[in-house]
């Protein structure tokens, strides 16, 4: 594995030349209203942050995101472990899962509005719904891939069914669970942003759409950049925690390849 600290110079150079291209093409364009230069977008972003206008929106988005994400994590991991372990339980749910999983989760937003209105609970609910699938599927997979010997070991040490689930199935399946959690991280942000655009109760998604409608395009882009930064930051935080918690697995997995 490549050392994680190495700076990818080529990637960095490419990234900044794209920004430069953006700047130049925008300044030589007649449509600057729709397509402001990147320097202006960055300036808008700083201005908005300083005026605290955006911070309120960010707070709302982050709160909805965290609530939805963690609720779905607890729900999907718990359910996934049970469905992965008990064949009969999975048989009950299989059709339902296979039917609902491929459906684009945003399609559930109008339904959720009908039942929950346009408040935070609706946004959190659709986020939970969308995030559940990757975590659920990966957890089920992970539990199914546990070697029988590991389960037998738990049993011979006198563990009952529930303790085996908690103390053996959960940690043994955790590399799969983490994969699901990482996929859902991005999904949670998509759902929160989309739902905010639809219902208009504040949040970065709402802010982006509102600025577009008011033709403050520079602010709109600032919102887009902000949500991208938010996604990037959350992903980095996730990777950092993963490296700490799953150190045992990186080593074990590398050993298996050798």
């Amino acid at each position, binding site marked *: 594995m490549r050392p994680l600290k190495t700076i990818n110079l080529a990637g960095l150079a490419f990234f900044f030349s794209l920004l430069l291209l953006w700047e130049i093409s925008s300044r030589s364009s007649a449509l600057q209203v729709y397509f402001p230069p990147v320097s202006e977008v960055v300036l808008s972003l700083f201005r908005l942050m300083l005026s605290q206008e955006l911070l309120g929106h960010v707070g709302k988005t982050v709160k909805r995101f965290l609530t939805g994400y963690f609720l779905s994590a607890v729900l999907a991991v718990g359910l996934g472990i049970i469905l992965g372990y008990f064949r009969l339980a999975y048989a009950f749910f299989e059709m339902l899962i296979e039917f609902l999983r491929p459906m684009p989760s945003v399609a559930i937003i109008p339904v959720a509005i009908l039942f929950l209105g346009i408040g935070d609970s609706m946004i959190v609910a659709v986020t939970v719904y969308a995030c559940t699938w990757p975590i659920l599927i990966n957890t089920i997979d992970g539990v199914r891939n546990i*070697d029988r*010997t*590991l389960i*037998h*070991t738990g*049993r*011979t*040490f*006198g*563990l009952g069914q529930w*303790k085996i689930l908690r103390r*053996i199935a959960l*940690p*043994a399946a*955790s590399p799969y669970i983490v994969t699901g959690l990482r996929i859902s991280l991005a999904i949670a942000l998509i759902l929160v942003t989309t739902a905010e655009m639809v219902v208009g109760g504040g949040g970065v998604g709402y802010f982006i759409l509102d600025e577009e409608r008011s033709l403050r395009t520079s602010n709109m882009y600032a919102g887009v950049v902000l949500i991208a930064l938010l996604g990037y930051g959350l992903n980095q935080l996730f990777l950092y925690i993963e490296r700490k918690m799953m150190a*045992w*697995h990186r*080593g*074990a997995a590398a*050993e298996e390849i050798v």
Partner: protein
Amino acid sequence: MPLLKVEELSKSYRQLDGERTVAIEEISFQVEKGKFVSLVGPSGCGKSTLLMCIAGLIPPSAGRVTVKGIEVSGPPPNLVLLFQEYNKSLFAWRSVLGNVLFGLEVKGKRSQQAEEKARHLIGLVGLSGFEKHYPWELSGGMQQRVAIARALAYEPEVLLMDEPFGSVDALTRLELEDALLHLWEDLGTTILFVTHDIEEAIYLSDSICVLGRRPSKVLQRIDVSLSRPRNQLATRADMRFMELRNEIYKQIGEPAH
């Protein structure tokens, strides 16, 4: 009263095509407290199936197993089964110390004392200094030592071992045999040891049950009168060792009728 008693135990499976395979048939033997008893038989004679039944992990088709007079219907609390595949039975997410502590935690022991005991056992199996290592960082032989320490931490009255040294190299195997004998002599745990290695069985045991080919039955119970402590060179050079080896080999080597 024997500590462990197996009475006319049979186990048959229904295969996917509906046919029944008899893995073991009417096996009977007993293990006295504190003894080291081996089951030796050809590969595929159902030895693992037998141990799984004794450990209460799978139900027998007929017959019964009793530990201290109590019939086994699920995993008995005073018995632990140690598997051959250490790489599958160790907890990859726990350190060496964590793995050994598991044997104590499941009995509700989590104190400072428990940790001291775990460290003591790690020392006994010769892994001092490796407490913080993870299983993948250790060699196969060292991993099996961790598994043994974890099993002993549980303080079982009976330790079942399913070809525990079958996946390590020949030299490591000799080392592990001696390490196991020392532990057994120190701790007095009753051991039922399964192997297809006749010499290993003789070297370790007080008594050997010879199993025939599938469906296996106990062909003979042989007492090993070699003196203890045993020595890899002297014991294996003993005339009686060779006689026993020949006797057992003749029985197992006979083709099925």
